[in-house]
């Protein structure tokens, strides 16, 4: 096994906000009955968090879980532990109708931070990103210009953005362009 490499090897840009590729993150797509006790327990075991409610993300030190749809979660775990966690999950969910797959390498992850972060995102996503409307812990799947993307906001005011690996370049250029140093809108 050689060292795994992320799509952009940690590229970064700084303007009205700072855009950084976050590198490889362990991610598992889990589909199943989000109401089932077994699944809840398995998720807790894998990530240390309870199943988040709709459009929310639950974060812990060792990972977290994001609500993707009524029957889908995106679990976040340390990259090196994905296979182990996946095996455990599959084991735990053997009894019920569920599907867990490793999607760590199918994704690119970006961190967007700084005063202009909300405005940068509001230039490319049809989402109300005002401080009143979009708060820490919120998770949103949406359209980022011309590709699908998802993001959440953490307590530190940093947005974590997840998109497909193949469009990592596009998303990075898009965000860097939106974060142009002289393009502050001045409303958020």
């Amino acid at each position, binding site marked *: 096994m050689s060292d795994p490499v992320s799509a952009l090897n940690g590229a970064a840009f700084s303007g009205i906000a700072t855009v950084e590729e976050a590198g490889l993150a362990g991610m598992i797509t889990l589909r199943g009955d989000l109401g089932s006790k077994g699944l809840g327990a398995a998720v807790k075991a894998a990530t240390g968090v309870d199943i988040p409610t709709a459009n929310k993300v639950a974060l812990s030190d060792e990972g977290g879980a994001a609500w993707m749809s009524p029957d889908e979660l995106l679990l976040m775990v340390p990259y090196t532990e994905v296979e182990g966690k996946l095996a455990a999950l599959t084991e735990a969910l053997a009894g019920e109708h569920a599907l867990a797959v490793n999607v760590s390498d199918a994704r690119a992850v970006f961190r967007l931070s700084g005063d202009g972060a909300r405005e940068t995102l509001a230039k490319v996503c*049809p989402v109300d990103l005002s401080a009143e409307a979009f708060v820490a812990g919120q998770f949103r*799947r949406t359209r980022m210009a011309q590709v699908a993307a998802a993001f959440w906001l953490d307590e530190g005011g940093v947005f974590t953005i997840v998109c497909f690996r193949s469009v990592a370049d596009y998303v990075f250029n898009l965000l860097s362009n939106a974060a142009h140093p002289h393009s502050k809108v001045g409303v958020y």
Partner: protein
Amino acid sequence: MLILECPYCGVKAEESELHAGGEAHLKRFGPGSSDAEFHDYLFMRKNPRGVHFERWRHINGCGKWFHAARCTTTLEVFGTYSAQTLEPPQAIRDAVSAKRPGWSWRDLK
């Protein structure tokens, strides 16, 4: 630029996050059906000036298909509801009746 509330995730999604899927509540006809039945199932679409029950997918979002009751002449949305139903639920029918008395759909009034 329409906005529709996805009944699965509650997001008020704008049109660019959605994919329109045409008339809702079509009954599938497979092998064993008559040519006429199969033809109507594939091609005959309600195209009313007024109340229309239709399918949408929250494609740039939770990915779920849902149904909407919408007016094709004012674009008013009477409501959105689950795709796992064979006909508009009572709540939706009431909402439509409140705004468009005398509307009808198939054998529903």
